[in-house]
């Protein structure tokens, strides 16, 4: 049976080619159908028209706009998460689900203070005038070794009771925690870019199974070989 994946606001949330996560899923299974919901459209998942929701990294300006767009659907999002809807959220899209985004701004001496969707209890702090933070991580989720790459101007702070990945090399949501991302029911959020599903083929298999599909991967031998090579390299170098 065909599975619909909703790509929320691709004109905002595809700044680092994250749409390749979905392109790769389509290559893995022909039953996957990606639906793009554009700014101004009503999200499909509200009416049960999607099996999974994807939202990727965006510019700082578009974070604020995306929060405005999703705020009317906040309760629907909470309900959907509780009902087990699959969400995959990557990069700084994770920040919009927290309580606040604060920090500095390149164009102004005044700090920003943006109210988030407040679905999860954490806040993010931007450092736009500092060097961009880049690092990689190795972590664990449900017995799978997860690899991540973060490239960001901000960090997130909170208790992270529902973290996605336990980091054992690298950092988590901020330099002082080994907790990375959010995992509640089938909501998976990570700061990591990637494309995340290319970087983590075991998790891609997990996601395909969660969607009720066979877990064969496109170019499975090649992607697994690249994953193993990268894992060994990161074990040596992080």
């Amino acid at each position: 049976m065909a599975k619909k994946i909703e790509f929320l606001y691709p004109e905002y949330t595809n700044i680092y080619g994250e749409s390749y996560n979905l392109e790769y899923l389509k290559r893995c299974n022909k039953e996957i159908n990606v639906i793009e919901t554009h700014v101004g459209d009503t999200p499909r998942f509200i009416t049960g028209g999607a099996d999974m929701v994807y939202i990727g990294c965006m510019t700082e300006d578009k974070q604020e706009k995306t929060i405005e767009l999703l705020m009317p659907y906040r309760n629907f999002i909470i309900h959907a998460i509780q009902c087990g809807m699959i969400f995959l959220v990557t990069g700084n899209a994770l920040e919009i689900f927290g309580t606040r985004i604060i920090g500095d701004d390149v164009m102004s001496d005044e700090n920003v203070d943006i109210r988030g969707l407040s679905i999860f209890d954490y806040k993010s702090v931007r450092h736009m005038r500092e060097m961009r933070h880049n690092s990689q991580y190795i972590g664990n989720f449900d017995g799978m070794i997860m690899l991540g790459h973060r490239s960001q101007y901000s960090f997130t702070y909170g208790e992270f009771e529902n973290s996605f990945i336990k980091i054992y090399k690298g950092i988590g949501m901020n330099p002082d925690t080994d907790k990375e991302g959010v995992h509640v029911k089938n909501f998976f959020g990570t700061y990591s870019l990637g494309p995340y599903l290319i970087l983590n083929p075991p998790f891609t298999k997990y996601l395909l199974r969660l969607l009720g599909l066979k877990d064969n991967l496109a170019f499975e031998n090649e992607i697994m070989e690249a994953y193993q090579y990268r894992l060994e390299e990161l074990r040596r170098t992080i």
Partner: protein
Amino acid sequence: MFRFYIALWASKLMMGFYYLIKKPKTDMPGLLACKMCPDFLEKISKPKLTITVTGTNGKTTTSTLLNDFLKSNGMTTSFNDWGANMMAGYAVNLIRGVSLFNKPKVDCSILEADELTLDTWMAKIKPDYLLVTNICKDSLRRNGHPENIFNHIEHTLRILGDKTTAVLNADDPISSELGKDSRRVYFGMSDTMSNPFVNISKDIAICPRCGGQIKYDYRHYRHIGKFKCASCDFKTPQADYMAEFVDLRNRTMMVNGHEYPLISDTIFNAFNVLSCIAMLKELGYRDGEISGFLSTQKVTDIRETCVEYNGIEYYTFAAKSQNVSAASTVFEYMAKEPSIKDVVLLMDEVQDKNHPTETLTWLYETDYEFLKDPKIRRIIVGGHMYLNHRLRLLLAGVPEEKIFAVEDEADIPQCVEQEGIDKVYVLYETDCVSKAKNMRDSIVNYVKEGK
């Protein structure tokens, strides 16, 4: 000023030392000066003309052309032409331009400038002109996204105010919006019928004013072209310097009715030449002077070199890994350039092997799909990212038999064909000029030795 003079003299002494040991292209004296005197860049005297060149792509080519033209016209210049395009590089540039007593001794400084730190340093230097070649997708890990770069350049122009004239690309929907409060001069290009490919990842997705859809009458490459918003009055501004009848094959174009030679057959270099012409015309130079100079120019050796052996041309060709727009534009050129060729990808950044923050991300924003072109017979990749390149090429639809992926770059020469092709291109990250030339020479030597 005491502190400043100590810093100036110490840095000049250090500069003299580096000249003696024949390493003049270093920014160490500039670093020393700025450490000793934090407001050194403000206090050092500037020549009567200061031109800053910034933008994602084309800075080096454009600033080199400007510098060489001004020198050939009898001006004395200082120029940070060794890639040091931040604080210390600016300091060395300006130190070269003053006497021991801080009196200007050159007519002009050409400052090639990094975009990300522009607002910090240009506010101190206060250039007369700020030429912005374009704003495109660049290294994710350093620059983030184009909107971030726009903000830094716009912030710079707001600080500089009417002191500085912005020379802008009218055909770039991102950078053409810069400098609303500045004096602006635009260069643009009429339709070149270049039929650009569609990129998988966009430099600008929506109208920066209203969020509407951006439409094009024509594009030159990527997001550069004649644009307009479907929902508001955002559109390509009127160009002060308009290139028409751009003939890449014969390397000529007309600008405001006068014919100029081009330095290569690429559209992006045509824009670099155009921006240089716009700048020089603003300075009052005549068409004949500029075109005469351009007829003697070619692309700088750090961007492209060629040797021929046994009927095959072996090129090194800069592609800038991690800079998505530059790499994709070069891949497009590879597909359109009419020769039968092998392409070697030598695009891993040198520092990444020891500090592996290198990501897969740029591979999936870059248009590897363009390399499917049948004129490209083999794609050979080496280095520690070889498996990631192979996977990306496969996902792009490149047939497996065309892909040669080896971990050890030393194995690359044996993968290159020795007959049935016209050219071999070694595409390289710009930090790796010597490495690329060594690889190209290894390929040629491998053929010469008849292996």
